[in-house]
Protein backbone atom coordinates (compact mmCIF):
# COMPACT_ATOMS: atom_id res chain seq x y z
CA UNK A 1 0.00 0.00 0.00
CA UNK A 2 2.64 2.42 1.07
CA UNK A 3 4.71 1.29 -1.94
CA UNK A 4 1.96 2.15 -4.41
CA UNK A 5 1.45 5.42 -2.60
CA UNK A 6 5.17 6.13 -2.96
CA UNK A 7 5.02 5.48 -6.69
CA UNK A 8 2.00 7.72 -7.16
CA UNK A 9 3.56 10.48 -5.04
CA UNK A 10 6.74 10.22 -7.07
CA UNK A 11 4.92 10.56 -10.38
CA UNK A 12 2.83 13.46 -9.07
CA UNK A 13 5.85 15.23 -7.66
CA UNK A 14 7.73 14.74 -10.92
CA UNK A 15 4.82 16.12 -12.92
CA UNK A 16 3.77 18.98 -10.67
CA UNK A 17 7.02 20.27 -9.29
CA UNK A 18 8.90 19.58 -12.50
CA UNK A 19 12.28 20.23 -10.91
CA UNK A 20 14.67 21.79 -13.38
CA UNK A 21 17.33 19.29 -14.31
CA UNK A 22 20.72 21.00 -14.26
CA UNK A 23 22.15 21.05 -17.71
CA UNK A 24 25.30 19.33 -16.49
CA UNK A 25 23.26 16.35 -15.33
CA UNK A 26 20.91 16.28 -18.27
CA UNK A 27 22.95 13.86 -20.41
CA UNK A 28 22.83 11.29 -17.60
CA UNK A 29 19.08 11.46 -17.12
CA UNK A 30 18.25 8.76 -19.71
CA UNK A 31 20.77 6.44 -18.11
CA UNK A 32 19.33 7.20 -14.69
CA UNK A 33 15.86 6.42 -16.01
CA UNK A 34 16.98 3.03 -17.29
CA UNK A 35 18.76 2.29 -14.02
CA UNK A 36 15.64 3.25 -12.05
CA UNK A 37 13.47 1.01 -14.20
CA UNK A 38 15.94 -1.80 -13.66
CA UNK A 39 15.79 -1.32 -9.89
CA UNK A 40 11.99 -1.24 -9.90
CA UNK A 41 11.70 -4.40 -11.97
CA UNK A 42 14.33 -6.10 -9.83
CA UNK A 43 12.44 -5.15 -6.68
CA UNK A 44 9.17 -6.42 -8.12
CA UNK A 45 10.73 -9.71 -9.03
CA UNK A 46 12.33 -10.06 -5.62
CA UNK A 47 8.96 -9.40 -4.05
CA UNK A 48 7.39 -12.16 -6.12
CA UNK A 49 10.31 -14.44 -5.31
CA UNK A 50 9.62 -13.73 -1.68
CA UNK A 51 13.06 -12.35 -0.95
CA UNK A 52 12.33 -8.64 -1.13
CA UNK A 53 14.36 -6.40 1.12
CA UNK A 54 13.67 -2.71 1.31
CA UNK A 55 17.24 -1.74 2.21
CA UNK A 56 18.65 -3.73 -0.68
CA UNK A 57 16.10 -2.15 -2.97
CA UNK A 58 16.85 1.44 -2.03
CA UNK A 59 20.60 0.98 -1.92
CA UNK A 60 20.73 -0.93 -5.19
CA UNK A 61 18.56 1.67 -6.87
CA UNK A 62 20.69 4.58 -5.71
CA UNK A 63 23.98 2.86 -6.49
CA UNK A 64 22.75 1.72 -9.92
CA UNK A 65 21.79 5.25 -10.88
CA UNK A 66 25.01 6.73 -9.57
CA UNK A 67 27.27 4.07 -11.06
CA UNK A 68 25.56 4.22 -14.45
CA UNK A 69 25.86 8.01 -14.50
CA UNK A 70 29.48 7.76 -13.40
CA UNK A 71 30.34 5.28 -16.13
CA UNK A 72 28.83 7.55 -18.76
CA UNK A 73 30.50 10.59 -17.22
CA UNK A 74 33.85 8.81 -17.33
CA UNK A 75 33.16 7.77 -20.90
CA UNK A 76 32.37 11.36 -21.83
CA UNK A 77 35.69 12.46 -20.40
CA UNK A 78 37.49 9.71 -22.30
CA UNK A 79 35.65 10.34 -25.54
CA UNK A 80 33.69 7.08 -25.49
CA UNK A 81 30.57 8.41 -23.77
CA UNK A 82 28.17 7.26 -26.47
CA UNK A 83 29.63 3.76 -26.54
CA UNK A 84 29.61 3.41 -22.79
CA UNK A 85 26.06 4.63 -22.46
CA UNK A 86 25.11 2.08 -25.11
CA UNK A 87 26.85 -0.55 -22.99
CA UNK A 88 25.01 0.55 -19.85
CA UNK A 89 21.68 0.53 -21.66
CA UNK A 90 22.37 -2.92 -23.10
CA UNK A 91 23.30 -4.44 -19.74
CA UNK A 92 20.42 -2.84 -17.88
CA UNK A 93 18.07 -3.62 -20.73
CA UNK A 94 18.97 -7.31 -20.60
CA UNK A 95 18.42 -7.27 -16.83
CA UNK A 96 15.06 -5.58 -17.23
CA UNK A 97 14.07 -8.14 -19.83
CA UNK A 98 14.99 -11.16 -17.78
CA UNK A 99 13.44 -9.70 -14.65
CA UNK A 100 10.27 -9.02 -16.59
CA UNK A 101 10.38 -12.61 -17.83
CA UNK A 102 10.71 -13.86 -14.26
CA UNK A 103 7.79 -11.69 -13.18
CA UNK A 104 5.75 -13.07 -16.04
CA UNK A 105 6.55 -16.60 -14.96
CA UNK A 106 5.36 -15.75 -11.48
CA UNK A 107 2.18 -14.09 -12.58
CA UNK A 108 1.08 -16.42 -15.38
CA UNK A 109 2.94 -19.53 -14.30
CA UNK A 110 4.13 -19.94 -17.84
Amino acid at each position, binding site marked *: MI*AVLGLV*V*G*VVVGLVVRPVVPSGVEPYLPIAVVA*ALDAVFGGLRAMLDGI*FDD*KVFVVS*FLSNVVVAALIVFLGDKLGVGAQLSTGVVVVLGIRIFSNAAAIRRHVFRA
Partner: protein
Amino acid sequence: MSLLTNVMEHSLDEGYAEAAARRGASGPSRLPRALSSKLGLAAGLVLAAVVVTLGAAQTQVSAPAEARERQKLIDRIQDETRGADALQKDVDSLRDTVDAEQQAALKSRGDGDRLVELLAAATPVHGPGVELVVDDAEEASSGDTGGPRESTGFSDTGRVRDRDMQRVVNGLWASGAEAITVNGQRLTALSAIRAAGDAILVDNRPLAPPYTVLAIGDGKRLGTAFQNSVDGQYLRMLQHDYGIRADLSVRDDLRLAAAPSLILRYATPDPAAPGTPGGRSAHPQGAGSAGRAGHGASGNTSGNKKGEK
Protein backbone atom coordinates in the same frame (compact mmCIF):
# COMPACT_ATOMS: atom_id res chain seq x y z
CA MET B 1 29.95 -14.44 -24.39
CA SER B 2 30.57 -15.19 -20.74
CA LEU B 3 29.88 -11.56 -19.91
CA LEU B 4 26.50 -11.67 -21.61
CA THR B 5 25.71 -15.01 -19.96
CA ASN B 6 26.66 -13.50 -16.63
CA VAL B 7 24.33 -10.58 -17.21
CA MET B 8 21.52 -12.92 -18.24
CA GLU B 9 21.94 -15.23 -15.27
CA HIS B 10 22.36 -12.63 -12.58
CA SER B 11 19.58 -10.33 -13.60
CA LEU B 12 18.37 -10.05 -10.02
CA ASP B 13 20.53 -8.09 -7.67
CA GLU B 14 22.42 -10.58 -5.51
CA GLY B 15 21.78 -8.39 -2.50
CA TYR B 16 18.24 -9.76 -2.30
CA ALA B 17 19.46 -13.35 -2.06
CA GLU B 18 22.03 -12.39 0.56
CA ALA B 19 19.51 -10.48 2.61
CA ALA B 20 17.16 -13.44 2.43
CA ALA B 21 19.94 -15.74 3.56
CA ARG B 22 20.74 -13.41 6.48
CA ARG B 23 17.15 -13.52 7.62
CA GLY B 24 17.42 -17.25 7.26
CA ALA B 25 15.19 -19.18 9.61
CA SER B 26 13.07 -16.21 10.51
CA GLY B 27 11.10 -17.05 7.40
CA PRO B 28 10.53 -15.11 4.21
CA SER B 29 9.24 -11.69 5.09
CA ARG B 30 7.80 -10.39 1.90
CA LEU B 31 7.37 -6.80 2.81
CA PRO B 32 8.83 -4.58 5.51
CA ARG B 33 6.93 -4.55 8.76
CA ALA B 34 8.55 -1.70 10.63
CA LEU B 35 7.38 1.81 9.84
CA SER B 36 10.88 3.15 9.28
CA SER B 37 11.67 0.54 6.65
CA LYS B 38 8.29 1.14 5.07
CA LEU B 39 9.12 4.80 4.81
CA GLY B 40 12.53 3.95 3.38
CA LEU B 41 10.92 1.81 0.71
CA ALA B 42 8.42 4.55 -0.04
CA ALA B 43 11.22 7.10 -0.33
CA GLY B 44 13.09 4.85 -2.73
CA LEU B 45 9.99 4.36 -4.83
CA VAL B 46 9.29 8.09 -4.81
CA LEU B 47 12.80 8.70 -6.03
CA ALA B 48 12.49 6.07 -8.76
CA ALA B 49 9.15 7.44 -9.89
CA VAL B 50 10.50 10.99 -9.91
CA VAL B 51 13.47 10.00 -12.02
CA VAL B 52 11.36 8.11 -14.54
CA THR B 53 8.75 10.86 -14.69
CA LEU B 54 11.42 13.48 -15.11
CA GLY B 55 12.96 11.53 -17.95
CA ALA B 56 9.63 11.24 -19.68
CA ALA B 57 8.79 14.89 -19.05
CA GLN B 58 12.17 16.02 -20.31
CA THR B 59 11.64 14.12 -23.54
CA GLN B 60 8.14 15.50 -23.93
CA VAL B 61 9.42 19.02 -23.43
CA SER B 62 12.44 18.78 -25.66
CA ALA B 63 10.76 16.90 -28.49
CA PRO B 64 8.41 19.74 -29.51
CA ALA B 65 11.29 22.22 -29.25
CA GLU B 66 13.35 20.12 -31.62
CA ALA B 67 10.42 19.70 -33.94
CA ARG B 68 9.87 23.47 -33.91
CA GLU B 69 13.49 24.11 -34.74
CA ARG B 70 13.35 21.56 -37.49
CA GLN B 71 10.18 23.08 -38.87
CA LYS B 72 11.79 26.50 -38.75
CA LEU B 73 14.74 25.24 -40.71
CA ILE B 74 12.47 23.57 -43.22
CA ASP B 75 10.50 26.79 -43.60
CA ARG B 76 13.68 28.76 -44.13
CA ILE B 77 14.91 26.28 -46.71
CA GLN B 78 11.61 26.44 -48.54
CA ASP B 79 11.58 30.23 -48.40
CA GLU B 80 15.08 30.46 -49.77
CA THR B 81 14.31 27.88 -52.41
CA ARG B 82 11.30 29.88 -53.48
CA GLY B 83 13.48 32.99 -53.61
CA ALA B 84 16.09 31.17 -55.65
CA ASP B 85 13.38 29.90 -58.00
CA ALA B 86 12.04 33.40 -58.47
CA LEU B 87 15.53 34.71 -59.15
CA GLN B 88 16.11 31.87 -61.60
CA LYS B 89 12.91 32.81 -63.32
CA ASP B 90 14.11 36.40 -63.49
CA VAL B 91 17.38 35.21 -64.95
CA ASP B 92 15.56 33.12 -67.51
CA SER B 93 13.26 35.93 -68.57
CA LEU B 94 16.12 38.41 -68.70
CA ARG B 95 18.11 35.94 -70.74
CA ASP B 96 15.20 35.62 -73.09
CA THR B 97 15.03 39.40 -73.34
CA VAL B 98 18.73 39.57 -74.04
CA ASP B 99 18.36 36.88 -76.66
CA ALA B 100 15.52 38.72 -78.31
CA GLU B 101 17.47 41.98 -78.21
CA GLN B 102 20.45 40.26 -79.66
CA GLN B 103 18.43 38.72 -82.42
CA ALA B 104 16.79 42.04 -83.15
CA ALA B 105 20.11 43.87 -83.12
CA LEU B 106 21.68 41.31 -85.37
CA LYS B 107 18.75 41.41 -87.74
CA SER B 108 18.74 45.17 -87.86
CA ARG B 109 22.29 45.10 -89.12
CA GLY B 110 21.14 43.71 -92.37
CA ASP B 111 21.55 40.58 -94.35
CA GLY B 112 25.31 40.37 -94.28
CA ASP B 113 25.23 39.84 -90.55
CA ARG B 114 23.08 36.81 -90.84
CA LEU B 115 26.43 35.09 -91.20
CA VAL B 116 27.76 36.50 -87.95
CA GLU B 117 24.65 35.25 -86.27
CA LEU B 118 25.09 31.82 -87.81
CA LEU B 119 28.70 31.58 -86.87
CA ALA B 120 28.11 32.85 -83.39
CA ALA B 121 25.58 30.05 -82.89
CA ALA B 122 23.00 32.66 -82.00
CA THR B 123 20.40 31.20 -84.28
CA PRO B 124 19.15 27.67 -84.95
CA VAL B 125 20.54 26.17 -88.11
CA HIS B 126 19.80 23.21 -90.29
CA GLY B 127 21.56 21.51 -93.11
CA PRO B 128 23.29 18.31 -94.13
CA GLY B 129 25.92 16.88 -91.88
CA VAL B 130 27.03 13.93 -89.87
CA GLU B 131 25.86 12.38 -86.67
CA LEU B 132 28.51 10.87 -84.47
CA VAL B 133 27.45 8.87 -81.43
CA VAL B 134 30.20 8.16 -78.94
CA ASP B 135 29.54 5.95 -75.95
CA ASP B 136 31.43 4.31 -73.16
CA ALA B 137 32.65 0.77 -73.64
CA GLU B 138 30.10 -1.92 -72.86
CA GLU B 139 31.94 -3.18 -69.82
CA ALA B 140 32.75 0.26 -68.55
CA SER B 141 31.16 0.46 -65.16
CA SER B 142 29.56 3.63 -64.00
CA GLY B 143 29.56 3.49 -60.28
CA ASP B 144 29.42 -0.19 -59.43
CA THR B 145 32.58 -2.01 -58.60
CA GLY B 146 33.57 -5.36 -59.90
CA GLY B 147 34.24 -4.14 -63.40
CA PRO B 148 37.19 -5.53 -65.28
CA ARG B 149 39.48 -2.84 -63.95
CA GLU B 150 37.82 -2.60 -60.55
CA SER B 151 37.67 1.13 -60.74
CA THR B 152 35.17 3.81 -61.48
CA GLY B 153 35.21 7.28 -62.90
CA PHE B 154 37.64 8.45 -65.48
CA SER B 155 40.28 6.05 -64.25
CA ASP B 156 38.23 3.43 -66.04
CA THR B 157 39.78 3.35 -69.46
CA GLY B 158 36.53 2.24 -71.06
CA ARG B 159 34.93 5.60 -70.37
CA VAL B 160 34.81 8.48 -72.78
CA ARG B 161 36.74 11.37 -71.29
CA ASP B 162 36.58 15.08 -71.83
CA ARG B 163 39.83 14.92 -73.78
CA ASP B 164 38.30 12.43 -76.20
CA MET B 165 35.31 14.67 -76.75
CA GLN B 166 37.60 17.63 -77.26
CA ARG B 167 39.52 15.75 -79.91
CA VAL B 168 36.37 14.55 -81.61
CA VAL B 169 34.88 18.04 -81.75
CA ASN B 170 38.20 19.47 -82.79
CA GLY B 171 38.50 16.94 -85.59
CA LEU B 172 35.01 17.78 -86.81
CA TRP B 173 35.82 21.50 -86.90
CA ALA B 174 39.04 20.70 -88.72
CA SER B 175 37.20 18.53 -91.20
CA GLY B 176 34.94 21.37 -92.21
CA ALA B 177 32.02 21.33 -89.82
CA GLU B 178 30.21 24.63 -89.64
CA ALA B 179 28.05 24.12 -86.60
CA ILE B 180 28.23 21.50 -83.90
CA THR B 181 26.07 20.42 -81.00
CA VAL B 182 27.00 17.92 -78.35
CA ASN B 183 23.94 16.31 -76.80
CA GLY B 184 21.95 19.31 -77.95
CA GLN B 185 24.42 21.86 -76.57
CA ARG B 186 25.44 24.15 -79.38
CA LEU B 187 29.13 24.91 -79.37
CA THR B 188 29.96 28.59 -79.55
CA ALA B 189 33.06 30.68 -79.47
CA LEU B 190 32.79 30.55 -75.70
CA SER B 191 32.15 26.85 -75.25
CA ALA B 192 34.47 24.74 -73.22
CA ILE B 193 34.45 20.97 -72.95
CA ARG B 194 35.79 19.83 -69.66
CA ALA B 195 35.35 17.26 -66.97
CA ALA B 196 34.02 17.66 -63.48
CA GLY B 197 34.17 14.59 -61.34
CA ASP B 198 32.58 11.84 -63.29
CA ALA B 199 30.84 13.84 -65.99
CA ILE B 200 31.77 15.69 -69.12
CA LEU B 201 30.60 19.28 -69.11
CA VAL B 202 29.85 21.34 -72.17
CA ASP B 203 29.23 24.96 -71.30
CA ASN B 204 29.06 23.92 -67.65
CA ARG B 205 26.21 21.58 -68.39
CA PRO B 206 26.84 17.94 -67.52
CA LEU B 207 26.26 15.40 -70.26
CA ALA B 208 25.24 11.81 -69.92
CA PRO B 209 26.46 9.16 -72.31
CA PRO B 210 25.89 8.37 -75.09
CA TYR B 211 27.31 11.57 -76.48
CA THR B 212 25.64 12.55 -79.71
CA VAL B 213 27.64 15.00 -81.76
CA LEU B 214 25.79 16.63 -84.63
CA ALA B 215 27.92 18.52 -87.10
CA ILE B 216 26.65 20.42 -90.10
CA GLY B 217 28.84 20.32 -93.14
CA ASP B 218 29.17 18.59 -96.47
CA GLY B 219 27.86 15.26 -95.20
CA LYS B 220 29.95 12.64 -96.97
CA ARG B 221 33.05 14.74 -97.33
CA LEU B 222 32.89 15.83 -93.73
CA GLY B 223 32.54 12.21 -92.68
CA THR B 224 35.47 10.94 -94.67
CA ALA B 225 37.62 13.92 -93.83
CA PHE B 226 36.98 13.28 -90.16
CA GLN B 227 37.66 9.57 -90.50
CA ASN B 228 40.96 10.29 -92.15
CA SER B 229 42.01 13.02 -89.80
CA VAL B 230 44.30 12.47 -86.84
CA ASP B 231 41.38 12.78 -84.51
CA GLY B 232 39.35 10.26 -86.45
CA GLN B 233 42.23 7.83 -86.18
CA TYR B 234 42.43 8.60 -82.48
CA LEU B 235 38.76 7.72 -82.14
CA ARG B 236 39.31 4.49 -84.05
CA MET B 237 42.21 3.73 -81.74
CA LEU B 238 39.89 4.25 -78.75
CA GLN B 239 37.36 1.94 -80.36
CA HIS B 240 39.94 -0.70 -81.05
CA ASP B 241 41.92 -0.60 -77.85
CA TYR B 242 39.34 0.30 -75.23
CA GLY B 243 36.06 -0.79 -76.74
CA ILE B 244 34.63 2.72 -76.77
CA ARG B 245 31.67 2.72 -79.13
CA ALA B 246 31.48 5.28 -81.90
CA ASP B 247 29.10 5.41 -84.80
CA LEU B 248 29.32 7.94 -87.60
CA SER B 249 26.45 8.39 -90.00
CA VAL B 250 25.75 10.92 -92.72
CA ARG B 251 22.47 12.82 -92.42
CA ASP B 252 20.61 14.79 -95.01
CA ASP B 253 19.06 17.35 -92.75
CA LEU B 254 20.13 18.08 -89.23
CA ARG B 255 18.53 20.69 -87.03
CA LEU B 256 20.74 22.38 -84.48
CA ALA B 257 19.36 24.59 -81.75
CA ALA B 258 20.80 27.98 -80.96
CA ALA B 259 23.14 28.44 -78.07
CA PRO B 260 21.28 29.62 -74.94
CA SER B 261 22.78 33.07 -74.85
CA LEU B 262 26.00 34.79 -75.65
CA ILE B 263 27.08 37.54 -73.35
CA LEU B 264 30.36 39.34 -73.63
CA ARG B 265 31.22 41.40 -70.61
CA TYR B 266 34.77 42.49 -71.24
CA ALA B 267 35.58 42.08 -74.89
CA THR B 268 34.85 45.18 -76.97
CA PRO B 269 35.81 45.89 -80.58
CA ASP B 270 39.24 47.44 -80.91
CA PRO B 271 38.86 50.74 -82.75
CA ALA B 272 42.49 50.68 -83.81
CA ALA B 273 42.16 47.44 -85.70
CA PRO B 274 41.27 47.81 -89.36
CA GLY B 275 37.75 47.02 -90.29
CA THR B 276 36.32 46.73 -86.83
CA PRO B 277 35.17 50.23 -85.96
CA GLY B 278 31.77 51.18 -87.09
CA GLY B 279 30.44 47.80 -86.30
CA ARG B 280 30.60 44.51 -88.03
CA SER B 281 28.63 45.74 -91.01
CA ALA B 282 31.94 46.81 -92.44
CA HIS B 283 33.06 43.26 -93.05
CA PRO B 284 36.15 43.78 -95.07
CA GLN B 285 36.48 40.28 -96.30
CA GLY B 286 33.98 38.27 -98.22
CA ALA B 287 31.46 36.13 -96.51
CA GLY B 288 33.38 32.88 -96.78
CA SER B 289 36.68 34.00 -95.42
CA ALA B 290 35.02 35.97 -92.68
CA GLY B 291 33.38 32.76 -91.61
CA ARG B 292 36.64 30.96 -91.44
CA ALA B 293 38.19 33.70 -89.43
CA GLY B 294 35.26 33.68 -87.08
CA HIS B 295 35.63 30.04 -86.33
CA GLY B 296 39.34 30.17 -86.06
CA ALA B 297 38.85 32.48 -83.14
CA SER B 298 36.25 30.30 -81.59
CA GLY B 299 38.73 28.22 -79.89
CA ASN B 300 38.63 27.33 -76.33
CA THR B 301 37.52 23.85 -77.11
CA SER B 302 40.81 23.48 -78.87
CA GLY B 303 43.73 25.40 -80.14
CA ASN B 304 44.10 24.22 -83.68
CA LYS B 305 40.51 24.04 -84.73
CA LYS B 306 40.56 25.78 -88.04
CA GLY B 307 44.14 26.77 -88.05
CA GLU B 308 45.24 23.80 -90.02
CA LYS B 309 42.83 24.47 -92.81
